[in-house]
């Protein structure tokens, strides 16, 4: 949960006053909170996401490099949670 995962902001939206968006992590997409970086970040920018929250903006080269290294380290447990959660019991109307 400590190492943030870099991803690309592909959608922006406002959820009752909270800046949210969809971030693409090397093909896995999920909704993330952009509230902490909203003044800095536009569509197409890359951000480092910690447990669903974008914390820092990075450039594309940096994002790609970090993502590759995380994959090499086998340290993408959070991506597994994302995938698991997307298909798992938390999905709307999913099983309990």
């Amino acid at each position, binding site marked *: 949960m*400590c190492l943030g995962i870099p991803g690309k902001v592909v959608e922006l939206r406002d959820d009752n006053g909270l800046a949210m968006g969809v971030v693409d992590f090397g093909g896995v997409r999920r909704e993330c909170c952009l509230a902490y970086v909203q003044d800095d970040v536009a569509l197409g920018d890359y951000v*480092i996401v*910690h*447990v669903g*929250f974008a914390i820092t903006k990075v450039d594309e080269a940096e994002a790609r490099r970090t993502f590759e290294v995380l994959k090499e380290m086998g340290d993408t*447990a959070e991506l597994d949670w994302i995938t698991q*959660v997307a298909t798992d019991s938390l999905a709307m109307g999913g099983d309990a």
Partner: protein
Amino acid sequence: MKFLSEYRDADIAKALIARIKAEATRPWTLMEVCGGQTHTIVRQGLDELLDGAVEMIHGPGCPVCVTPLEQIDKALAIAARPDVIFTSFGDMLRVPGSDCDLQQIRARGGDVRIVYSPLDALALAQRTPDKEIVFFAVGFETTAPANAMAVWRARELGVRNFSVLVSHVTVPPAITAIMEAPDNRVQGFLAAGHVCAVMGWTEYEPLAEKYRIPIVVTGFEPVDILEGMLLAVRQLESGRHEVENQYVRSVRRDGTPAARTTVEKVFELGDRKWRGIGEIPMSGLRLRSEFSAYDAERKFGVADLAVDEPAECRAGDVLTGRLKPPKCGAFGTRCTPEHPLGALMVSAEGACAAYYHIGKYRTQETAGAAS
């Protein structure tokens, strides 16, 4: 160099190792305080490659590992309730409590679910009004902004069936505790780049000054870590003690101010036990009193639960650098990643698990070379 040879920046890494060895006139003892860095150091064999120049002590840098036993037991007690859906980051599920872990609670019928973000838990609370949704709010400064926002939003949206079991720890008080320990050997620190991305590094400046130690904000890739070590060694060799930033690419001195502000609105500093180490004054975050309605410890009456750590686990000695994991009597026998006795064996970032896995890689490699 057999581990580094697989790494694509191997040439830069080799050059950095040569530099460090050339510049160190004596062996220096540094501590990394990030589990991700521990993982890289042990996996790439960086400590062995630098033998004689730099000794790395693996610090208490993994929130899974330092979550105290009693917080795990509180989680288990809450998760076992039929009216509760207990939500957590995935890596907390296998942390052993006194009797079992969260996974076993789930096997016995408890509703325990992995979430990626605390906002997932909040959304679940909104969709499931007839259940109490509890989120296990653990972590260092990197998860605090997310957890703070979930509580903030719960209040803003008037969600009442949501609460958090807080076990947050912060890095600077741990550095103080390590430096104040009577048998401390640490002469410099690699601070975690991604923690500083949130909080900045102003809190480290008085520590570097007071204890006259270099603190280098460092990333978690092999080349980052070697660069961080080189900067620390250079400071030590020239008698300097400053906060330096190796991880320039995404860290600013003041971190991410919006995130810090929300953390400060929701949480305040409080004493916190660290598993294997004991209580460190003002080293944790707890909910401010205005948010006590979201405090799971109060809601479920577990605030007073206190338990002792199992005597056999030597996590405290490992985390303070007195003992390397393989020297623990239980290592690899009664304590393995499949059946961890202590938290350091649970997550890939725990020092004991890191050593255990590399032991496996090495055996496989030797076997491969022999055949």
